[in-house]
């Protein structure tokens, strides 16, 4: 398969505007004749459904939550980047583009990233006009802060709840369209299958999670904005319901899955405290601005109270290894170094599974230097959250942190139009692979979701509708019937196994395998082991899972079982992709490929491509396709933070 | 379905009716108390006050009309709201804690019903000769002083009045402050002061009103 990005050539600064002009439009009077399905109502899906509804299309939107307002975009704390350059500190569209390509370790498509940076400016305007209460200065203008080690202040924020406020903005616009009848909303409805007719995406099969009813919905175009697959790890900062079923079902129908091994591990999360833990909580990265990361120098100190460890016995490893960036090194480096310390037996905190996994993030110096009040002003709400969860007071005792899975850069492969390899199937937000390469910068996820939802997809979806031949199909079409039947069969299968183990126990075990072998550091042997283990676990799942109840009721176990079944396939592909990519880049660290100082070493000669995998059938190995990446504007260089 | 919704169809509108009619009646109880405290000035002043009020003629009837209308609206609206509130939670909690509210707020409908009953009794007590009186003779309003002394010389009547004034105090304790919130005049800057003043008046009415029957019973006023 030849992967065509369809990005226009020529001057990068005008690519998107030229492309927009060249795209076809749909006459306003005809828009109501087109049916659009949007799955997922986070920033990308919510913004898209609201925009298309308002433009006059017939939209059906779906989410598994009880309300579109609850999508996990809501949990983003830090902020959203935009190249507004309001502080006049040297930012520009080009600089944001440059930083994003570099931050992604040269594994993203330049055209897409430039468009993202360009559109970032409109996003802030749009959100402010919706009433998003961004932080402001006393003069009434918008406030900005520097985020994640960026050298310019380009991050807009609404306290520690930026994601929530942006999502509510999109949700409110969406609610208006729902009330107006242009968007039909299906909450508590899960997409379980894609309907493909004559090679084109024509609809989805859903399950009403309250009544259990299986329904088919048909449309002229299907857009998946269903988020990432971080929950393959079981323990992650994702919401409990986040899943990859929609994208995985599309993948099984022929949509290529790109770069599944690119996962972002966030360094500042609250460590695992026990066997029954269900999720990990992220603490904003901004904590590293004033907190100092350390572990005891001596193994015998790890169980001591941190207050009893004298200054000379503390190892401030980030400050030592990276004198110029210190505690503010990028996420992947901070994460990996923390793992290293714990691997060496210097980890602190409670013992879980025979290990202590945690490092100190100490505000002692900051409290002394700035005073408790100033620290409270900056981090008060985060400290409160920490205390609520751990029962410890970060003002007096250092926080304990450990990395956790946070974001997945990989996703369904899309071209410049965000169209997958299935015609008529578009993918937006975290669900696609498009903009972050091998590592995402802080405050860029919100930007990408809204860019896709408000500005890119409305244009490219319209172009598709205007150019594709309109063919009417109905529910009686054999492909529709077949898709519905396959969903029914799968439910029956899951319910009929009636084995010994709960769905969660499988999920937990899968998470341990992936985290252990395909987490912060990966090796050939480890990945090969993981693939075998996942295969065995998957085989056991289909023989031994226990799902109680029936399909025609609210059945939490049944919902989870379907998702975990897909994770069991996706997990294997992640390992396979990581095995294939024997270089290190961004969030993907292969121990075989590191510099002498232990930093990630890219291999541009052999791996400067997007790895996109094609489904071959049950228990068949996927086939790899490559989209070569070219860098015309930002020349690849080795990242250095020393 | 597409019926026009008037202000007083909404719960906010109804609550504002409650608040405004409450203000009218609060004003009345304040005035009523101030007038009746004249009992401490002796029979002449007190009887003259009663006669003076009756001389107001049409004005008196206007005031009575406004009061009666307020009372009727207050009661009718309260009944609607209570019914609505009951319908809003058809299945009760097995365990429910109230952590913030006051006893007075929770018992508004009960104190309200009690006060309605006592109001009717009070009217009968002092205006309809022969009803609910002890074994003494009801006098014309120009000799109202004697009626008060006689009326409050019966211990159980005095006790009833004192208890009822406590209910009135509770009703006003919640109502007097709550109404500022309901009509939207609350402001965090002034809330403390407003609450203090409003509830001081509530306390004042309670104490002032209790003083009268208590003083009679204790023989301080004869």
């Amino acid at each position, binding site marked *: 398969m030849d992967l065509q990005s369809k990005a226009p050539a020529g001057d990068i600064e005008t690519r998107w505007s030229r492309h927009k002009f060249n795209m076809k439009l749909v006459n306003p009077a005809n828009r109501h004749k087109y049916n659009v399905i949007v799955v997922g109502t986070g920033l990308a899906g919510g913004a898209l459904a609201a925009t298309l509804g*308002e433009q006059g299309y017939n939209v059906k939107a779906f989410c598994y939550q009880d309300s579109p307002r609850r999508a996990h975009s809501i949990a983003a704390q830090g902020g959203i980047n935009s190249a507004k350059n309001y502080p006049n500190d040297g930012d520009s569209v080009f600089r944001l583009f440059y930083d994003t390509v570099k931050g992604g370790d040269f594994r993203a498509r330049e055209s897409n990233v430039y468009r993202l940076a360009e559109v970032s400016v409109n996003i802030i305007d749009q959100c402010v006009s*919706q009433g998003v209460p961004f932080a402001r200065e006393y003069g009434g203008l918008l406030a900005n802060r520097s985020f994640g080690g960026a050298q310019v202040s380009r991050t807009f924020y609404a306290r520690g709840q930026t994601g929530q406020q942006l999502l509510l903005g999109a949700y409110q616009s969406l609610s208006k369209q729902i009330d107006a009848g242009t968007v039909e909303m299906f909450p508590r409805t899960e997409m379980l299958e894609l309907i493909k007719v004559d090679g084109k995406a024509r609809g989805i099969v859903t399950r009403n999670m309250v009544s259990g009813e299986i329904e088919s919905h048909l449309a002229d175009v299907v857009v998946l904005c269903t988020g990432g697959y971080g929950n393959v790890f079981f323990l992650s900062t994702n919401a409990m319901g986040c899943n990859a079923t929609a994208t995985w079902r599309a993948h099984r129908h022929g949509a290529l899955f790109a770069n599944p091994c690119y996962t972002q591990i966030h360094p500042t999360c609250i460590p695992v405290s026990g066997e029954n833990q269900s999720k990990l909580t992220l603490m904003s990265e901004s904590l590293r601005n004033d907190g100092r990361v350390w572990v005891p120098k001596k193994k015998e100190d790890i169980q001591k109270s941190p207050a009893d460890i004298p200054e000379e016995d503390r190892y401030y490893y980030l400050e030592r290894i990276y004198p110029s960036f210190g505690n503010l090194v990028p996420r992947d480096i901070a994460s990996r170094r923390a793992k290293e310390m714990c691997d060496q037996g210097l980890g602190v905190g409670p013992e879980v599974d025979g290990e202590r996994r945690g490092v100190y993030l100490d505000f002692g110096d900051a409290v002394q230097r700035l005073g408790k009040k100033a620290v409270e002003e900056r981090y008060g709400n985060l400290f409160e959250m920490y205390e609520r969860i751990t029962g410890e007071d970060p003002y007096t005792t250092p926080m304990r942190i450990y990395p956790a899975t946070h974001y997945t850069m990989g996703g369904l492969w899309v071209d410049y139009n965000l169209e997958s390899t299935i015609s008529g199937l578009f993918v937006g937000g975290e669900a696609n692979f498009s903009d972050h390469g091998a590592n995402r910068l802080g405050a860029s996820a919100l930007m990408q979701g809204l860019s896709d939802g408000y500005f890119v997809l409305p244009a490219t979806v319209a172009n598709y509708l205007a150019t594709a031949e309109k063919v009417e199909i109905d529910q009686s079409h054999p492909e529709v019937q077949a898709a519905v039947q396959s969903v029914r069969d799968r439910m029956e299968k899951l319910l009929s196994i009636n084995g010994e183990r709960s769905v969660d126990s499988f999920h937990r075990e899968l998470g341990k395998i992936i985290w252990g072998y395909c987490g912060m550091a990966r090796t050939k042997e480890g990945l090969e082991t993981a693939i075998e283990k996942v295969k065995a676990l998957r085989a056991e799942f289909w023989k031994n899972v226990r799902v*109680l109840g029936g399909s025609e*009721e609210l059945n939490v176990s049944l919902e989870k079982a379907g998702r975990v079944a897909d994770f069991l396939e996706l997990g294997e592909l992640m390992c396979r992709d990581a095995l294939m990519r024997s270089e290190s880049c961004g969030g993907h660290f292969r121990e075989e490929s590191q510099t002498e100082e232990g930093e990630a070493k890219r291999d541009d000669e052999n791996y400067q491509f997007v790895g996109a995998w094609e489904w071959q059938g049950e228990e068949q190995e996927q086939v790899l396709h490559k989209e070569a990446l070219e860098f015309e504007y930002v020349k690849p260089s080795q990242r250095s933070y020393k | 379905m597409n019926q026009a*919704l008037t202000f007083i169809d909404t719960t906010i509108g109804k609550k504002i009716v409650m608040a405004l009619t409450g203000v009218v009646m609060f004003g009345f109880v304040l005035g009523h108390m101030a007038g009746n405290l004249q009992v401490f000035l002796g029979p002449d002043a007190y009887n003259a006050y009663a006669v003076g009020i009756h001389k107001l003629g049409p004005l008196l009837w206007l005031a009575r009309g406004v009061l009666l209308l307020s009372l009727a609206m207050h009661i009718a609206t309260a009944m609607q*709201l209570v019914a609505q*509130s009951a319908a809003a939670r058809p299945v009760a909690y097995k365990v429910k804690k109230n952590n913030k509210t006051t006893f007075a707020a929770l018992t508004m409908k009960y104190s309200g019903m009690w006060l309605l009953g006592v109001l009717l009794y009070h009217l009968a007590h002092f205006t309809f000769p022969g009803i609910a009186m002890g074994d003494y003779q009801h006098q014309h309003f120009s000799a109202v002083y004697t009626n008060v002394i006689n009326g409050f010389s019966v211990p159980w009547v005095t006790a009833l009045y004192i208890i009822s004034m406590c209910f009135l105090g509770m009703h006003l304790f919640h109502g007097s402050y709550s109404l500022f919130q309901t009509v939207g005049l609350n402001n965090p800057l002034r809330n403390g002061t407003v609450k203090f003043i409003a509830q001081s008046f509530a306390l004042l009415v309670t104490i002032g009103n209790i003083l009268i029957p208590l003083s009679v019973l204790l023989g301080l006023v004869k």
Partner: protein
Amino acid sequence: MSTINLVLHVWRQTGSDDKGSFETYQAKDVSEHSSFLEMLDQVNETLVADGTMPIAFDHDCREGICGSCGMVINGTPHGPQKATTTCQLHMRQFKDGDEVWIEPWRANAFPVVRDLVVDRGSFDRIIGAGGFVTARTGSAQDANALPIAKGIADQAMDAAACIGCGACVAACPNASAMLFTAAKAGHLNLLPQGQPEKESRTRNMVAQMEAEGFGHCTNHYECMDACPKGIDVEFIAKLNRDFVAATVTARAPLNTRAK
């Protein structure tokens, strides 16, 4: 690590047609570092092992922001800890041997779907009635063209922090949705962007709230006490004020809205 044992009385109801009742379960060896929902997960694992349907409850982000979770725990929505959602409530708040009563939000406008899961669609409809600023995508002016006083922006943010969990309704002795509606209307009514639609927003959101069958506000302030985000009742006063003003200035009748 210390663990505790609890006796749970959990509301079980198979669907909206079912009458429902309390069932008693033992929660054994619960780590005090577990969250309340993790404790329920643990109980569910034992229920599944025994062949009993697990307890259904809404939850998603488990970091206190999505607003999915919520149950009345020993008579208090979201449990004993102030300004905390159920998912952020940790078991160190309980003692070994405690009896815990767990009930769903109870309100006519929040019908029980299953066990502790309720339907809060009424909140979405209140937003749909007017809880938005109409802003056509792509037509916005530059964000800094409209300065907003910091105090106003901060106050709007205080209101906008609402997560729509419904604890206010659950806590209110009258099952009133005034705090939710007031927070959502207040956020937009405060901002200059919200002014053009202020009148219709206020009236329509109130009309929808009425149609959904919530109770009235009698200023108990239980809502504020239960609110995991500490939304202040001053926004209720503001909604009352805005509603009176909108009624005074309106030039068209306010229509009832469908549930």
